């Protein structure tokens, strides 16, 4: 909103055309499976959307006096690519920016709508005729401001055309330069990028499932999590904007800590509209700091982005709620080292004895963390905790199975489109990890519940006329299984069945929670053996009382739980430390110094036979 151009014409004078046009944030939404682009719904989408419009003042008063509109004289707006929308306003040249305060009336075709929800109209190639009411307001009330928003990039001008008897008698081109925020990504790991619209099923964020705000993000969409390249301790990110090549090199990007530009962060865009920015973590910033990325045109050609040359851009969530400017959340080198040490200390700590440290017993959680830290089963990984097999599985960070659980697109050698082969480790039924799952309340409670709700009535009916001592399997074929139902904790769009594993209350950070946390039950089957018995129910000191009862004498339970082992930086504490390592692993491009924090899939095949209901 900084650049004005005046285009003189022999008969008309048009001013106040904003020379650079931001296409709405909604333009970015176009790639999303959720939400409709702002520009496509024919209305202004709220106060924040107004920032995506710019005012154009049509100084036609004099002309309208000499050539008033009539049945044969028409005033039209045309744009060859149909790349623009506009909104009528009652604004004057003097208060052309009044729309930013979102007035409650004066907008739209009848000039009665609020600015934030006014009707927009597309400017098409054949032209849209300006209304008699609007032209009259220009002539009589010194109005004449329209608001324009971009629908797509274009290098074709917006034209004001005056036709008489169907022939053009004059036209004024208004060149608007469209700049669209494209993406911001970690230079060495393009998969780690803004804006990542992949829906996330991540409960972190304070409002339960669904992530931050009401959107399904896992982390705010305007944050790009980075650690510095260990080679030179610099953050390295690439900004991409959509801009005609002939203009691109006039633009620059820089990182800001608050409103202060970080020294050395200022870089020019190339002709392809890309700018690789690099900067060090300023000494004045905290261990973890936010660096806002701003772009703008170097209008005075002094080789840097000056105050007043930047054009802030706001990223919105799927509900169009503004989240803030594109921001790198950086972790400085010393914090990375501290995080590494912190994870080392957890792995080296003893979590096998209750009361030894914090009362937590985390023998498996510690080993799963070790596997994440080391990226492989290392020599110091105890045999009894090792996975029994491993294989590689394809993974797509943006669209694939489990993409909804990966908060940060790092921790693997992703290619530019976000695909990678990751390791899936399997713990078979003989492992202690399988035993941990098999005996967790999340597996055993449903076994009991299913017996009560389903098997017990069937058994009661079955044994009604059978003598004591009879027994039977349920299902009747003793080698088949019931499918044990589990309640899906995630929204319906997440593959079934999400369950949070947790065993000890009130200490929620127990081994099964630390090992799996939220996992996915792929299958859970069971069968029961029931026997009709005489059970002694005599009261103490009372007469003998033998009662016929159905007793469960065996329960066979087996199934598979699967999970993606990764971390969310926003959880803080040890989870944040682990996430920092994951973010540092990136594409593996940081060499030996960033070889920790590799995501993997864990698959636990549990199986247990009980001598009664668990």
């Amino acid at each position, binding site marked *: 909103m900084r650049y004005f151009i005046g285009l003189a014409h022999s008969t008309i004078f048009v001013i106040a055309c904003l020379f650079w046009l931001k296409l709405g944030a909604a333009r970015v939404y176009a790639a999303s499976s959720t939400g409709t682009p702002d520009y496509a719904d024919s209305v202004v989408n709220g106060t924040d959307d107004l920032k995506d419009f710019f005012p154009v003042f049509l100084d036609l008063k004099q002309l309208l006096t000499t050539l008033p509109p009539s049945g044969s004289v028409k005033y039209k707006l045309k744009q060859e690519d149909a790349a623009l929308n506009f909104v009528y306003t009652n604004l004057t040249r003097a208060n052309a920016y009044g729309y930013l305060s979102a007035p409650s009336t004066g907008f739209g075709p009848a000039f009665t709508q609020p600015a934030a929800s006014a009707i927009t109209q597309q400017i098409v190639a054949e032209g849209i005729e300006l209304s008699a009411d609007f032209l009259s307001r220009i002539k009589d009330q010194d109005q004449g401001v329209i608001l324009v928003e971009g629908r797509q990039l274009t290098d074709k001008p917006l034209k004001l055309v005056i036709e008489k008897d169907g022939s053009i008698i004059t036209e004024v081109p208004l060149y608007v330069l469209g700049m669209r925020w494209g993406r911001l990504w970690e230079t060495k790991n393009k998969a780690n990028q803004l804006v990542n619209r992949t829906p996330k099923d991540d409960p972190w964020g304070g409002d339960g499932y669904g992530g931050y705000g009401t959107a399904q993000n896992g982390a705010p969409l305007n944050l790009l999590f980075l650690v510095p390249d260990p080679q030179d301790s610099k953050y390295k990110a690439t900004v991409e904007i959509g801009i005609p090549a002939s203009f691109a090199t006039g633009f620059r990007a820089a990182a800001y800590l608050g409103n202060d530009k970080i020294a050395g962060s200022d870089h020019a865009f190339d002709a392809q509209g890309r700018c690789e920015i690099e900067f060090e973590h300023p000494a004045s910033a905290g261990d973890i700091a936010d660096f806002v990325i701003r772009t703008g045109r170097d209008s005075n050609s002094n080789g840097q982005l000056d105050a007043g040359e930047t054009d802030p851009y706001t990223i919105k969530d799927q509900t169009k709620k503004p989240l803030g400017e594109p921001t790198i959340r950086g972790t400085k080198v010393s914090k990375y080292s501290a995080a590494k040490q*912190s994870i080392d200390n957890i792995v080296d700590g003893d979590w096998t004895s209750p009361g030894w440290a914090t009362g937590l017993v985390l023998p498996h959680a510690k080993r799963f963390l070790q596997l994440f*830290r080391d990226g492989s089963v290392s020599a110091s990984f105890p045999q009894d905790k090792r996975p029994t097999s491993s294989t590689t599985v394809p993974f797509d960070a943006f669209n694939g199975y489990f993409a909804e659980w990966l908060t940060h697109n790092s921790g693997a050698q992703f290619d530019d489109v976000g695909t990678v082969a990751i390791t899936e480790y399997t713990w078979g039924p003989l492992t202690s990890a399988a035993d941990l799952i098999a005996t967790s309340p999340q597996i055993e409670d449903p076994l009991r519940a299913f017996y009560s709700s389903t098997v017990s009535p069937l058994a009661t009916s079955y044994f009604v006329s059978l003598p004591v001592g009879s027994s039977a399997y349920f299902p009747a074929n003793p*080698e088949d299984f019931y499918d044990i139902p589990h309640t899906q904790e995630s929204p319906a769009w997440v593959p079934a069945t999400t369950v949070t594993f947790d065993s000890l209350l009130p200490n929620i950070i127990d081994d099964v929670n630390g090992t799996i946390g939220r996992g996915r039950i792929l299958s859970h089957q069971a069968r029961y053996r029931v026997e009709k018995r005489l059970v002694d129910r005599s009261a103490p000191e009372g007469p003998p009382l033998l009662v016929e009862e159905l007793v469960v004498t*065996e329960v066979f339970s087996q199934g598979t739980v699967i999970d993606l082992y990764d971390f969310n930086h926003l959880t803080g504490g040890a989870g944040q430390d682990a996430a920092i390592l994951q973010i540092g692993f990136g594409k593996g491009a940081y060499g030996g110094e960033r070889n920790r924090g590799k995501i993997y899939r864990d698959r636990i095949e549990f199986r247990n036979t009980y001598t009664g209901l668990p």
Partner: protein
Amino acid sequence: MKTFLQILAVAFYAQCALAQDSTTAELNRITAMTVALDGGGIAGFLDQTSSGGWKIPHIPSQWHVEHVAKPEEKQIDVAARVFGKALAKRLADESATMQRLPADDSLYTATVRLLDLSEWCAAVDGYGNAFLAQRCLDLAAVGVARLTANLDFPLEQCEVLLGRMQPAWLSAETNLRILNKDAGAVIFTTADREEMERVMGSGNIARRMKANPTLNADLESRGIAKGLRRSKAIDENLAFFDDTEAGQMRPPTLVNTWDKKTHGALVVGLELQSIEKARALIEFRKKIGAFPEKPDFSEEQISMREKRIAESASQGIKISRFEDAYRSPMAAAFAQAWRRYLESETSNVGNLPRQHQNLDAAAFQAYDEIRRHAFLDHDSAAEQQTK
């Protein structure tokens, strides 16, 4: 007095000369062993150890050579390590040879040789000795499993081989001795795996705390500092706990890790999953007598079952077919055969140890991997994963 001093001096020089002779002799012996490795492979080498009465030298870690060994010991230590690395490379070659051998007497002979070599390596408590012995054992386990999978090969011979695969040197006691010897200090005092892990972990944490005292607060706040094992030996040997990071040893084969520091492996123990899988396969074959391909159901059973599944579905109850609950028909067949065997042996399977209840899972994994040529020793598997 003068005469006495002269006598002492002569004795000292004589001793030095003797020591020099003994060092030279040991170096020559080790060199001869190293050369012998290049000759006739594992078989030829074993023949020479036997005919020459060669005992394996003590092979310390590279870290020991650099931090603990006395100057006069270094020459022999280095030579022993050179020999050890040469043997590690020879074993890598042997792995490929083993994979090519058919599961018959030739594989049996090769497996026996590896078990012999494993015992020879472990005859002296040493860091390198233990890893070499483990490597041999791992390769032998693959041989045993493959022989077991061949129903034409006598099971008794497989059992004999398996009987040699739980040697005493795998014990925590032996590992403790090796660790203390290599550290040059009595750091570990209790031959209990969990306690040894606590000591190793405590030493690592103490090392980091010394390097970065600001960590104390973090350790305190997370409860990690509480209960750390402390001792003079730990405090005086903090460098001992600084094992090479796993990421710097990819793939983590014996050859690649030979010059690195991996004492943590001795702390957690050198037991092998390959042996457990081979053991399960032998037990399965012994009890079942075959490796079933598909679950065993009669036409009548299948017909009845489908009827019941349909009836249950009409009541809103979902029943899974037995074989659908497993990864493959063969996995289901193994599970069914084992379950039927267990039920023939006991009235309530739930009373059996869980490892025994679910043995079919390990047996199936072993058999399936053998069929797919995927039952590999650790190093070969690690190399394959890296490709």
